């Protein structure tokens, strides 16, 4: 695994006081909060910052972490193996902001391997039931129209015969129920963290993979439909590929570019199915041939049309 320099992550010296660490953490976590930050990697940075603070704000974990680097000059990203006797004599276990979100890939392997084992060896009072875990699953819009089965990969914590916790990659095949929307939570019973009285549950938050044709708001779906000028002006039927298949849509004569047509009930399915909105967007044929130029010139001459008239 790669060594993580938690002090570097928070931008503090190894001798920083608890107050300095807290101050640096709060400043960074505000800066990289996903709702505020414009940085593309804000989510990942927030996780790194939480992980670092989870260790450095806990006296026992910080001492154990410092002990790990004592006498070595590990650099962030350097390949690293903890000494076999590392962690002996330290109590506690996974906890705090980093660990609470850790299972399911939020924390690094570095954190999970070090502190899951630290907790596993020194576990004093095993939880009655394993903690619930949280992750997200990204699906295509088409998946919610029909339902689907999708495989996700998670880093999970398990116990070995000596009751020590170790982490491994685990692939889960999950059914995606028809009609799910972004932000909804899927619950998988017994797929959370292990515990003495049974495992916790796994919650998966639904996210849609961005699509260049469809946009989603709740159960409503928005789709831009390119149309020729004569289809707008004269009206007629156009064939449109929607998330639920091809449909023929009547464009009313005299439509303008930007007109919105609603196909009721063709959004995301559900007890109250969403609607599909088609935004008509005119695309002009290029005037690259003599014939095309001649047609545009004829229109200009015969139609006497000034779109700026009156304004």
């Amino acid at each position, binding site marked *: 695994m790669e060594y993580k320099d938690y002090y570097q992550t928070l931008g503090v010296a190894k001798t920083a006081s608890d107050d300095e660490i807290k101050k640096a953490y709060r400043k960074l976590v505000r800066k990289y909060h996903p709702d505020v930050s414009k940085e593309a990697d804000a989510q990942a940075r927030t996780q790194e910052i939480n992980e670092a603070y989870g260790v450095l704000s806990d006296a026992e974990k910080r001492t154990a972490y410092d002990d790990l680097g004592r006498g070595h000059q590990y650099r962030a990203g350097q390949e690293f193996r903890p000494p076999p006797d590392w962690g002996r004599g330290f109590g506690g276990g996974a906890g705090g*902001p980093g660990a609470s979100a850790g299972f399911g890939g939020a924390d690094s392997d570095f954190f999970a391997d070090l502190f899951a084992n630290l907790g596993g060896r020194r576990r004093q009072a095993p939880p009655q*039931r394993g903690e*619930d875990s*949280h992750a997200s699953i990204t699906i295509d819009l088409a998946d919610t129209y029909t339902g689907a089965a999708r495989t996700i990969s998670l880093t999970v914590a398990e116990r070995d015969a000596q009751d020590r916790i170790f982490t491994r990659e685990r692939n889960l095949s999950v*059914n995606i129920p028809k009609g*799910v929307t972004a932000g909804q939570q899927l619950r998988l019973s017994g797929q959370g963290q292990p515990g003495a009285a049974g495992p916790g549950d796994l919650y998966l938050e639904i996210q849609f993979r961005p699509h260049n044709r469809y946009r989603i708001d709740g159960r409503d779906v*928005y789709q831009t439909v390119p149309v020729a000028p004569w289809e707008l002006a004269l009206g007629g039927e156009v064939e449109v590929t929607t998330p639920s298949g091809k449909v023929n849509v009547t464009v009313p004569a005299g439509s303008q570019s930007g007109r919105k047509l609603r196909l009721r009930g063709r959004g995301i399915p559900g007890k109250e199915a969403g609607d599909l909105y088609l935004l008509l967007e005119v695309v002009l044929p290029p005037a690259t041939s003599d014939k095309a130029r001649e047609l545009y010139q004829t229109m200009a001459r015969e139609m006497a049309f000034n779109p700026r008239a009156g304004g």
Partner: protein
Amino acid sequence: MGHVLTAVVVDDAALTLEELAQACAVEPDWVVARVRTGILLDDSADTHGDNAAGWRFTSADLVRARRLCQIERMFDANDDVAALVVDLSEEIRRLRVKLSAAGVK
């Protein structure tokens, strides 16, 4: 493909008080306090009577509760300030979805 696990949409089988607390890694009292003050559960639920066992929490409640918990822990924030932050955060997310649906990058 191997065995496919059955996932249940939380909104179809909404969470009890204990289930929400377990999902957020908090004590049930933490949830009760935030329901009583109107931070969790909407106005349509009977949150004042002695019926906590009858409360049911949706996906949106779970996401909100976890964000509240996160803000309180990150900043040692009190519950009202955390609720304000989460309200603003939800509004930003809602507006971003509207912008995206309108085709604004």
